[in-house]
């Protein structure tokens, strides 16, 4: 019934603010956000059934494969309310669903007046959803609680309605029940969005101010900037200015997405759409920044802008040294679309030429790595991820360390490391084991609440360094996969930290150095030396492997010299065969990295540095 013919819908730039509703959907991965969004596209008629493809809004292949949404978009949905029969424009702003992209989420939320809190009726709320819910509540958004997948046999809508009601302070009967898959309840949800979410407020006559909530590089069009107009009007003929940089741009196109781009005359108060200015690099059009009119600029920027700040660092090296240039080009290209990615050239004695890269978090790291491998066809080695340390020397000199091998050797006064507030949701039976894990990881308990009778929310303050290394894996295995985790940076703390070097035959291997807490140095040393003893093949001579703090050796293993490496026979018929065998061995030797005289197979580096399992696991959940 209420699909609205386009000729009856409001035109972009001519939509009265009181007829606009801007909302986002807060949901955990797998809780059915994309399916619900697709269903809304269908019901409002902006996508005809025959053009529908699953998860229409997830653009990139990786997103579709992983079933997660990295980049948000905004879709304009015309809707005639079933309650008052009037036409409205609903702008659905998609939000990234992962811990690493909290800032992007906060900007998407800031572009809305309301949020649909979408929770799987068979699983209940997860930590990241909770974090985003709190973010939405801090932004004073109207929350519409919705239970999805009520068609599933395993659904427990009553139980999770209670949980949601307790969280947001409403009545359980206020929770809408829908199925994105079958479409049950979706029309009612659209009507409730119109009814409950306030219309945008703004001064149509003031100088234009629009907030950038996303910025995407498109090969054909350059950077496409998604904005929400707060005050005034942006038109296609304007010259615009970015507040943070003061740089001016000619507007080439302005329009809305519905769900394909439709160029228009402009955008008015409360409207959501896109701008194209010919800029080629998303760093010139940053999320959170304010767009204004260059001729008649606003005097005050919208609040909340932050520069993206890398939290986790890792060295990326091409498996084949000859691919270095290709890696650099691939990073340059990726940065056009990823303002948070930073990198600088780095040389490792063990791994050769590569880049030290900074990421928002582990998922961000893994996504970048995977895109480099997939889109540029590169084989990469990534060093174990580490955080950034601030080292104050006794003479007061301050050093910022993003690579453990650069940790200073002189007299160190203090070392500061980043700290996060971690939120863990899990069934209450796992309290004990979760607390034990967090204590082991130098955490301090900040608080604990029951979400329902058998689900708890535990808050810990933890050093970020303890999370980047196999924490999530551990948490998952201790809770049989039930726990979910979210964290946000809260600052830095003074820590009793040391650098542990790993030496092969007396020579430090930079790629294996790590900064760890003093109490854990021994365990790291033992773990790494043992691992390497197994991974490095026996050589012609004995190879001592040591872990050391400065000149003090804390762990030692040794690889016994190989005693016999010779084929028994070499007669007439053996010669061609043996030559081919030895030629093959020589090929293998080319893939060895030399550390002093020690031949270390590439695979040993990969295996010793490998954290792939952790990261992959993390991105799944």
């Amino acid at each position, binding site marked *: 019934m209420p699909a609205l013919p386009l000729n009856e819908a409001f035109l972009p730039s001519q939509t009265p603010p009181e007829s606009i509703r801007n909302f986002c959907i807060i949901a955990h991965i797998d809780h059915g956000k994309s399916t619900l969004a697709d269903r809304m596209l269908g019901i409002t008629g902006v996508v005809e059934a025959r053009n529908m493809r699953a998860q229409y809004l997830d653009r990139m292949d990786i997103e579709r494969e992983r079933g997660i949404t990295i980049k948000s978009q905004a879709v304009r949905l015309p809707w005639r309310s079933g309650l008052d029969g009037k036409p409205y424009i609903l702008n659905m702003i998609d939000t990234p669903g992962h811990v690493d992209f909290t800032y992007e989420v906060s900007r998407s939320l800031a572009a809305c007046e309301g949020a649909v809190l979408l929770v799987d009726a068979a699983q209940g709320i997860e930590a990241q959803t909770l974090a985003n819910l709190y973010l939405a509540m801090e932004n004073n958004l109207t929350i519409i609680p919705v239970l999805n997948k009520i068609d599933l046999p395993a659904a427990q809508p009553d139980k999770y309605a209670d949980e949601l009601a307790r969280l947001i302070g409403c009545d359980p009967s206020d929770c809408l029940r829908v199925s994105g898959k079958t479409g049950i309840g979706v029309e009612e949800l659209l009507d409730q969005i119109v009814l409950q979410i306030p219309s945008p407020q703004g001064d149509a006559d003031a100088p234009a101010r629009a907030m950038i909530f996303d910025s995407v590089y498109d090969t054909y069009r350059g950077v496409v900037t998604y904005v929400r107009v707060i005050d005034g009007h942006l038109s296609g003929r304007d010259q615009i200015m970015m507040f943070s940089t003061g740089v001016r741009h000619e507007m080439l196109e302005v329009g809305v997405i519905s769900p394909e781009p439709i160029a228009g005359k402009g955008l008015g108060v409360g409207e959501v759409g896109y701008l194209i200015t010919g800029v080629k690099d998303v760093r010139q059009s940053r999320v959170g920044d304010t767009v204004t009119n260059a001729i008649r600029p606003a005097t005050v920027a919208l609040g909340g802008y932050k520069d993206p700040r890398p939290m986790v660092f890792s060295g990326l090296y091409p498996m084949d040294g000859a691919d270095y240039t290709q890696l650099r080009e691939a990073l340059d290209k990726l940065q056009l679309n990823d303002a948070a990615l930073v990198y600088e050239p780095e040389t490792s004695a063990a791994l050769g030429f590569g880049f030290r890269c900074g990421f928002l978090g582990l998922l961000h790291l893994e996504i970048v790595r995977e895109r480099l491998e997939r889109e540029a066809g590169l084989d990469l080695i990534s060093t174990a991820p580490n955080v950034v340390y601030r080292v104050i020397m006794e003479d007061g000199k301050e050093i910022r360390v993003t690579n453990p091998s650069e940790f200073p050797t002189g007299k160190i006064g203090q070392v500061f490391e980043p700290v996060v507030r971690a939120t863990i949701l899990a069934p209450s039976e796992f309290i004990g084991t979760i607390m034990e894990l967090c204590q082991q990881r130098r955490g301090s308990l900040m608080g604990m609440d029951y979400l329902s009778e058998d689900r708890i929310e535990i808050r810990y303050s933890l050093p970020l360094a303890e999370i980047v290394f196999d924490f999530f894996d551990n948490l998952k295995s201790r809770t049989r996969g039930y726990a979910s985790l979210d964290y946000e940076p809260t600052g830095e703390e003074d820590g009793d930290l040391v650098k542990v070097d790993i030496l092969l035959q007396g020579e430090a291997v930079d790629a294996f150095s790590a900064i760890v807490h003093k109490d854990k140095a021994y365990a790291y040393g033992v773990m790494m030396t043992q691992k390497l003893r197994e991974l490095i093949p026996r050589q012609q001579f004995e190879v001592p492997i040591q872990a050391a703090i400065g000149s003090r050796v804390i762990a030692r293993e040794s690889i016994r010299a190989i*005693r016999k490496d010779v084929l028994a026979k070499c*007669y*007439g018929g053996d*010669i*061609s065969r043996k030559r081919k065998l*030895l*030629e093959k061995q020589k090929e293998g*030797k080319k893939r060895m990295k030399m550390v002093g005289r020690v031949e270390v197979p590439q695979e040993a580096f990969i295996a010793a540095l490998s954290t792939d399992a952790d990261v992959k696991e993390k991105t799944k959940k």
Partner: protein
Amino acid sequence: MDRADSEVVMPGDLPVGEPVPRDGSLPAGVTAGKRPFALYIHIPFCSRRCGYCDFNTYTIAELGGDESIEKRYVDALIAEIAMARVIVGDQQVETIFFGGGTPTLLPSSEITRILNAVRLHFRLSDDVEITTEANPDSVTAGSLGELRAAGINRISFGVQSTTTHVLKTLDRTHNPEQVPVVVQAARDAGFSHISVDLIYGTPGETIEEWRDSVLSLLTLPIDHISAYSLIVEEGTKLGAQVRRGVLAMPDEDLNADKYIVADDLFTSAGFSWYEVSNWAKPGGACKHNEMYWMNNDWWGLGAGAHSHVDGVRWWNRKLPAAYIKELQEGASPALAREILTDDERAFEELMLGIRTRAGLPLSAVSQSVAEQALEDGNLDPGQYALGRVVLTRSGRLIADALLRAFSDV
């Protein structure tokens, strides 16, 4: 290509080379006569296949139970000898080696027939060395006399071990008591050059048992010993037993100890090493083996045999029936060949030379790698001073690793 040959995958198969002309002719510019010339004659028959063996050999039952194949095979060998003569021309033969298989399974008259054909087509050197391999239980005093009479002047016995359970694991058919008897019989028949083959590293063999095997042989009238560590080859019964965990994979550290034990005992009994796995009394070195290690020319006659002439290596069809068929049709039995590049030839010189007591000229290897090897105790310092690369015992044990280092220039 012959169907049967292409379908049978044997252990130790070579990758496919380029085809050989039907008349077997050598590529243009390739000629014999630049280096000494030898003949290898393969007899692919055994009374039983040993579990560790990946050689090209068959029991009569495996060949269809037709004993006439032996005679037809010898006819084919004689045809190949005539073909070889046409291709390489009038060459003087320095050494002849009957290998297998078990050559002594053939009646001595057949050996005589083969050698007569060789004499008909080639000149034999005055001090020609003619060796046959034999199993301790495949000869008698009588047959040894006949072999001697046919012109064989060197015999190599496949003893492998004198420990009964080791022989059993290896599927060997003789018992240890036969060994001294048969060696003495060979001596009595007039063989002045007698060799024994030993294998160490058989699953279950202790170092003491190995020492006993070595000691029991050193009292015999022999002038040559080959001692090989057991190689577990894929596609053999032993390989399957190791893969299934029925037998343990040989421990190479223990094998290193066994090598040292043997080398000490051989040396104290007057044998010196002249190749990684070969020891001889003065004058007892096998000249035929040296032909291989000096990269000289040889023609391998028989099924699956390999040849080398002037930088071209080729190999014959493996199945006796296919081999016979080609020669009956007047065609070359060669299956494929490779023409070595200069780099490959240089690498082979290095690969073969480094295993020998003669060693290599210092100029053939990287100076810095050689210095490191000398410092590590892997090169003989006296020989080094004379400009030669000759391995010490510790060097011999890691000869392949050193070769990789040396050829890395």
